[in-house]
C-alpha cells in the first residue's frame, strides 16, 4: 500500500505518476526515483490539428478528455506496476491552454484523492529542463539550458535544482512559431519544424544571407524580422528554390540560438549546455550546437527526440524533484495558463 501523505519520504524508490495535457499531446508516465522511466505514453493530436495549421484549443481539450483514461491505463500497464504502487501524482499546471491543462489536473487530483497520495503541480517549462537531465542524470550544475519550442525561446541558468534565472528570451515570436509561420508561407504544411528541417537538408544554407537579428547584442533574440525577410525575399525573387530558402532560414535561426547559448554559458561559467523543447529536435541545431560546444570544450546534453517534445516522464521527474524541494500541492490547485518559470511555487 502506498504511504500516506504525511509520512511520505521522497527517495530512489518513490514512484511518481506524471500527467501532461498542456498543449496537443496527452501523456502519462511512471517514473521511479526521479529519473528511472518505467513507462512513457504519448497520444499525439498532431493529425487532428494539422488541417487548421495550428493547435485549436477547444479541439485539443476534447481530444485530451477522450485520450486521458486510456493513456493513463497504458502508462500503468507498461510500467509493470499497479495503481497501488503509485506514491505521488504530478501534473502540468501551466503554462499552456487552460481547457487542456484542466483535464490533466482534474485527472491527477482524482488519482491522488483515491489513492490518498500527494498531488504535485508541475511547471511545464521546469519539466522541459528535467527532460534534458532524464537522458543524462550525471549533468553538473551550473548548467545553461536553451529551451526552444512553439511557445518558448528561453536561455535559462540552472544553478541547482529548482533555482533558475532566465537570462535571454525572444522579444517576439518563439523559435518554433517562426518555423511554423515560415513553413506555412512556403506551403510546407504543419508542423513547420520537421518540414523545414527535412527540406533544408537538400538546400544550400548559404544561398541567401538572411538577417541574424541582435546577433551581437545581449542574450535576447528576435525572429519577426527574419520572417518578414523571408516573405520579402520570395516576393522579390519568386524563382528562388524553396529548399534554399528553408536551409538559409533555418541557418539564420540556428546561428543566433547557438551564439547566444554559448555566450550565456560563458557568462554563467557553466561547463555544460543542454537543449530542450520541440525545436531541440531540429537536426541542424543539434549538430551546430555540438560543434560549437566542442570548440569551447563545453559538455553538451542533447536529449533524445522523445524527450525534446512534450511527454509525461519529464513531468513525473520534475514532480519528484518538486516534492523534495517544496512538498505537495493542495488539492484546490487549478491551472495557470501563463505560469512563468521563475515564479515561486507553493
Amino acid at each position, binding site marked *: 500500500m502506498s504511504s500516506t501523505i504525511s509520512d511520505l519520504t521522497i527517495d530512489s524508490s518513490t514512484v511518481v505518476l506524471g500527467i501532461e495535457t498542456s498543449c496537443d499531446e496527452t501523456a502519462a508516465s511512471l517514473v521511479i526515483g526521479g529519473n528511472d522511466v518505467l513507462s512513457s505514453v504519448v497520444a499525439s493530436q498532431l493529425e487532428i490539428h494539422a*488541417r487548421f495549421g495550428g493547435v485549436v484549443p*477547444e479541439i485539443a*481539450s*476534447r481530444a485530451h478528455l477522450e485520450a486521458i483514461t486510456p493513456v493513463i*491505463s497504458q502508462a500503468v500497464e507498461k510500467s509493470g506496476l499497479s495503481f497501488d504502487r503509485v506514491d505521488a501524482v504530478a501534473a502540468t499546471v501551466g503554462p499552456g491552454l487552460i481547457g487542456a491543462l484542466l483535464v490533466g489536473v*482534474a485527472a491527477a*487530483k*482524482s488519482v491522488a*484523492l483515491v489513492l490518498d497520495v500527494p498531488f504535485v503541480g508541475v511547471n511545464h517549462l521546469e519539466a522541459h529542463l528535467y527532460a534534458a537531465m532524464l537522458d543524462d542524470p550525471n549533468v553538473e550544475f551550473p548548467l545553461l539550458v536553451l529551451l526552444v519550442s512553439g511557445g518558448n525561446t528561453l536561455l535559462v541558468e540552472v544553478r541547482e535544482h529548482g533555482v533558475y534565472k532566465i537570462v535571454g528570451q525572444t522579444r517576439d515570436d518563439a523559435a518554433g512559431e517562426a518555423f511554423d509561420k515560415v513553413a506555412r508561407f512556403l506551403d510546407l504544411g504543419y508542423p513547420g519544424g520537421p518540414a523545414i528541417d527535412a527540406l533544408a537538408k537538400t538546400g544550400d544554407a548559404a544561398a541567401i544571407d538572411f538577417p541574424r537579428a541582435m546577433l551581437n547584442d545581449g542574450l535576447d533574440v528576435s525572429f519577426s524580422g527574419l520572417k518578414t525577410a523571408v516573405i520579402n525575399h520570395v516576393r522579390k525573387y519568386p524563382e528562388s528554390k524553396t529548399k534554399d530558402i528553408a536551409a538559409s532560414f533555418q541557418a539564420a535561426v540556428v546561428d543566433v540560438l547557438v551564439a547566444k547559448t554559448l555566450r550565456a554559458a560563458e557568462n554563467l561559467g557553466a561547463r555544460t549546455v543542454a537543449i530542450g523543447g520541440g525545436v531541440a529536435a531540429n537536426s541542424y541545431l543539434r549538430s551546430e550546437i555540438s560543434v560549437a560546444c566542442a570548440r569551447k570544450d563545453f559538455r553538451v546534453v542533447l536529449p533524445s527526440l522523445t524527450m525534446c517534445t512534450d511527454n509525461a516522464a519529464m513531468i513525473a521527474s520534475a514532480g519528484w524533484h518538486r516534492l523534495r524541494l517544496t512538498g505537495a500541492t493542495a488539492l484546490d490547485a487549478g*491551472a495557470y495558463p501563463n505560469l512563468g518559470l521563475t515564479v515561486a511555487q507553493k
Partner: protein
Amino acid sequence: MIVLAIDTSTDAVSVAINNSKQLLASAHVTSDRRHAELLTPMIKSVSQQADIAMFEIDVVAVDIGPGLFTGMRVGIASAKTIAQVLDIPIIGISSLDILARSVVATQRVVLATIDARRGELYWAMYRNDLGPSIEVKPPVVGKVSDCVADLVDRGQSALIVGNGAQRHQNAMSESLEATGLSIEWASEQLAQPSANVLAIIAAELALHEQWQTCVEVQALYLRAPDAEINWQTRVNS
C-alpha cells in the same frame, strides 16, 4: 450500493453521495468558473461527511453535459479517473435529464433548458407524469426563438425548467403569451442540475447494471468547436 455523483456542467459545482436508499451527504457551490479548484476538495469533504472512504464507492455518476465545456470536462475527467483507479463502473447522465427529473410529476410536458450562451439554449422535452421522466424530444442546441417554436409545435401546456430559459424568461414569456399555451416556470432553485438528483437517477440505473466503463463515457457537447464549424463552412462553400 454507494453512489458518488458529480455535476459541473453549469456555473455550479455539485457533489452528492447516496447509498441508493438515501442521501448521505452533499454540497453545492456556485463556482464562477472555479470548477477545477473546488471539485476535488468537495468530493473529499462530502465523502468525509458521509463517512464513506473512497474505496467504498461502488459507482460514479457524472453529468456529461450539455453545458459549460470546460466545467463539464473537469467533472467528466474527474469521474472517469476515479472510476478508473477504483475499477468501478460509471454512469453518465445528461444535464437536461437531471433537470427534468428534478421537477415534480406533472401532466405538462417538461421543457428542460441549459444556457448555451450567444443567445442560444440547449433543450430537450420530457414526459414526467408517472415516475422517471421519459424523453419525448431529444436534446438540441439552437436559438431561443427555435426553442419557443418547438414548444408551440408540440401544442401542449408546459413546465419550463433550467438556467437557459431562466436567462431568457422575459423574451420567452412574451412570445409564448400570444400562443395561449399554458406555461408554468419551475422554481429558480432548480435552475442548475443537482448532484442529489443525479445520484438518485444513477442509483436506479445501477440496480439494473445500466452503466458504462470509464473509457466509454463521453461528453455530450451538442455544439461543434468554432474552428470545426468555420472549417465546414469553408469546405462547403
